[in-house]
């Protein structure tokens, strides 16, 4: 049984009383992330150092509380939604950019640093951190690491994993280890590689060594309008097939363009059925050549309007349109459910048609803004939760979207992970043996199942080798009946 009071006393002694939240209202704020799932926790700790994180993990182990690591809570899959008598370890106060070393193309940062703060800090020195999730103003580097986050610029530069050289992590037993290296290779298995994207189930990341890149000497941003979604999606494939890998390749449909225009006044063509935002970078000559080829591909597919940003202000305007999309959709309806799944790029047209058909069948409004170059879809259902039956329809439609993507040869998530919401879809894409092997990986880090339990893997997935140890642990695992409402379980 968890001894919450004793845990609270010990944490208050180690972290100070203002770093521990135990009152019901305070805890409620940490009961969910950006997903639909509302959970609950016993305590919230706000450590400022790795030593304090160690104290948190040790106290949780001593008093039988599972640990739920949390960044900024912008994840859509419920990875940071706590369940049962857990201790939420929020890294929001660990916000130091420890050092920037251009000569080694790296920077050490604490996990609570917001992605955009790091980007801005580097930019003044001529450097950049490539992953730029749309939530970058809020989402933290620690969260980015745990969800292997993406963003528009991951098409050419790769996802977060390609930009993390090393992590310091507090292990389930409270020890602090470094995985990866400042150099290009590290000894032993690539544990850094499995920690990135592990959704807080292997430990609590307390410091991150990120790869930084020089700001490219030239960049050009273009916006193309199309009369049909099909032509827009086909242009995406044509650009790639033509040998250009743009720095970013983003698609938005009419519904979202209209909402964005009302909100950001970025000069997007509101009559277009879909728009494509393309950015290329490199040297001046490289950018000129890529621009020519991209324009050609768009022309071949009957582009109806072309805008090329003439200067940095116009470029910022075009990006503002894209990045404010999720703010703008509040005009459509009070609530939204945003999806995240990936399909092969060449299946975009067919999957988009399927998404519209699903929305129509359930009488729902769907808009689309997504990383087309990566095949990473973000269908967004707008609705009013107070209308009886609506939420249920949204959840049914969501279920169908996931299955549609999987049937097209896709993956369950592109950048938010599995968390709670998609756990039980895992058998759609993996066999029992695959899941057992994944469970073994997890148990190798956390034999007693203390870290973010019941996330990522469905309940049945067990590592044979470690099943006995996990069952005998002191952690109070919640029953299926305890799972919060709104999970699709």
């Amino acid at each position, binding site marked *: 049984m968890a001894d919450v009071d004793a845990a609270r006393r010990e944490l208050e002694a180690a972290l100070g009383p203002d770093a521990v939240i135990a009152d019901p209202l305070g805890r409620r704020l940490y009961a969910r992330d950006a997903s639909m799932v509302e959970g609950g926790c016993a305590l919230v700790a706000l450590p400022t150092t790795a030593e304090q994180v160690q104290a948190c993990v040790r106290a949780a182990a001593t008093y039988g509380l599972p640990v739920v690591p949390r960044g900024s809570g912008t994840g859509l899959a419920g990875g940071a939604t706590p369940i049962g008598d857990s201790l939420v370890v929020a890294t929001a106060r660990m916000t130091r950019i420890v050092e920037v070393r251009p000569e080694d193309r790296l920077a050490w940062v604490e996990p609570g640093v917001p992605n955009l703060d790091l980007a801005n800090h580097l930019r003044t020195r001529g450097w950049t951190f490539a992953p730029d999730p749309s939530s970058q103003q809020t989402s933290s580097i620690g969260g980015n690491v745990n969800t292997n986050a993406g963003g528009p610029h991951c098409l050419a530069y790769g996802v977060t994993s390609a930009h993390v050289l090393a992590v310091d992590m507090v292990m389930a037993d409270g020890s602090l280890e470094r995985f990866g290296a400042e150099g290009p290779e590290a000894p032993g298995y690539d544990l850094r590689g499995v920690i990135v994207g592990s959704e807080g189930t292997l430990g609590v990341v307390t410091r991150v060594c990120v790869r930084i890149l020089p700001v490219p000497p030239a960049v050009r941003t273009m916006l193309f309008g199309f009369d049909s979604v099909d032509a827009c999606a086909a242009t995406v494939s044509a650009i790639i097939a033509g040998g250009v890998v743009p720095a970013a390749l983003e698609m938005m449909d009419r519904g979202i363009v209209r909402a964005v225009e009302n909100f950001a006044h970025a000069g997007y063509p509101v009559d277009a059925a879909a728009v494509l935002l393309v950015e290329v970078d490199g040297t001046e000559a490289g950018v000129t050549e890529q621009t020519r080829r991209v324009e050609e591909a768009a022309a071949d597919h009957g582009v109806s309007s072309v805008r090329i940003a003439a200067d940095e202000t116009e470029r910022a305007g075009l990006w503002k349109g894209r990045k404010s999309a999720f703010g703008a959709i509040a005009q459509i309806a009070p609530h939204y459910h945003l999806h995240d799944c990936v399909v092969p790029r060449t299946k975009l047209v067919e999957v988009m048609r399927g998404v519209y058909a699903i929305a129509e069948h359930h009488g729902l409004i769907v808009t689309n803004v997504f990383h087309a170059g990566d095949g990473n879809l973000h269908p967004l259902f707008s609705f009013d939760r107070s209308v009886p039956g609506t939420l249920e329809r949204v959840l049914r439609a969501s279920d169908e979207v996931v299955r549609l993507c999987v049937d097209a040869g896709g993956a369950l998530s592109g950048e938010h992970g599995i968390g709670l919401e998609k756990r039980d879809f895992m058998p759609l894409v993996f066999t029992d043996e695959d899941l057992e092997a994944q469970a073994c990986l997890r148990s190798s880090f956390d034999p007693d199942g203390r870290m973010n339990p019941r996330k990522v893997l469905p309940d049945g997935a067990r590592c044979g080798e*470690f099943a006995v140890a996990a069952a005998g642990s002191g952690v109070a695992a919640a029953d299926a009946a305890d799972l919060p409402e709104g999970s699709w379980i």
Partner: protein
Amino acid sequence: MDLIHPRTAADVADALREASTSGRRVLVVGGRRHIDKGNPSGVDAELWTTQLDGVVAYEPAEMLTVVQAGMRCDALGAMLAEHGQEWPADAPPEATVGGVIASGSSSARRMRVGPLRDTVVEMEFVTGDGRLVRSGARTVKNVTGYDLHRLAAGSLGTLGVITQVALKVRPLPERRLTLTAPGDLPLATAIASEVTLAAGVVATTDAVEVRLEGWAGEVDELAAAVTRLAPASTPEDLPSFPRAPWWTWPGDATIAEVAVAPSRLVGVVSATTTYAALAGVGLAWVVAANEDELGELRRRAERAGGIAPVVRGPGGLGSADVRGADVLRRLKRSFDPAHVLAPGRSLADLPQTR
């Protein structure tokens, strides 16, 4: 020495199940380029992947291909080149796809193309006890469960036998160019920090080679920038970069692969006589004439926070501090419980130290 020469992944699974039961110790072999890495010993059988050489899928517009792990790199390269694409391994022609991935090697053009492990998006492998396992997906972006393929990449065949991979490929550059100039590692470092879009800058004891690639006009611009720093440079169109990769070096002297933070590279290799050092990346291939030289090189690498495993000759992976040793042991126990894979390789031996 027995030979296991499977035709299918199911054959691999059968062979390893049998090996785990009988205790037959198996070394997975691809193109043998990294056969010395970790110095396997006490092997009862070799498992050759060369009959697992089929193409499962290739869709150029996806920039993805799915191939079996025994496919030779030259065959893969030829297939991709027909569609103007490449898999940036820069391995010798007889190397196999699975071998290159399992050995943890990367292209010398890494500054531009990234580490090779990042190109592996899906993998099927057979564990030491004969379970066929898949992770990842055939998409360029994916956060769905744990990336077991990350573990297998660079694991030297100690956790499983890679049977199939989905790889991210890239467009072949419109133009490539190598500039060679008299110079040393400090000059190479200056070029790498100034011409950040170069594909690679390698220094030997007396010369610097700069590899440029991209759009034709882009290469001209980059070449002009290099020439400003190294006026005596000669441009050539060379297929290979560097001109002489370490596996072509004559003799059988021991070669270690140093990996340190880029700015520490000069300090580690400057006292040695035969090396190729990748400026801006922090990798160097260094000849160690004897055990003392290897020991000294490793001490310098470790003081600089890096490692120096041997890739040709004796010497193993080195004594660098392996973090998370408990995790590594548990992984080995889960994936190769009978401890039959890649005997003698240091990673695999971890459980015995407990």
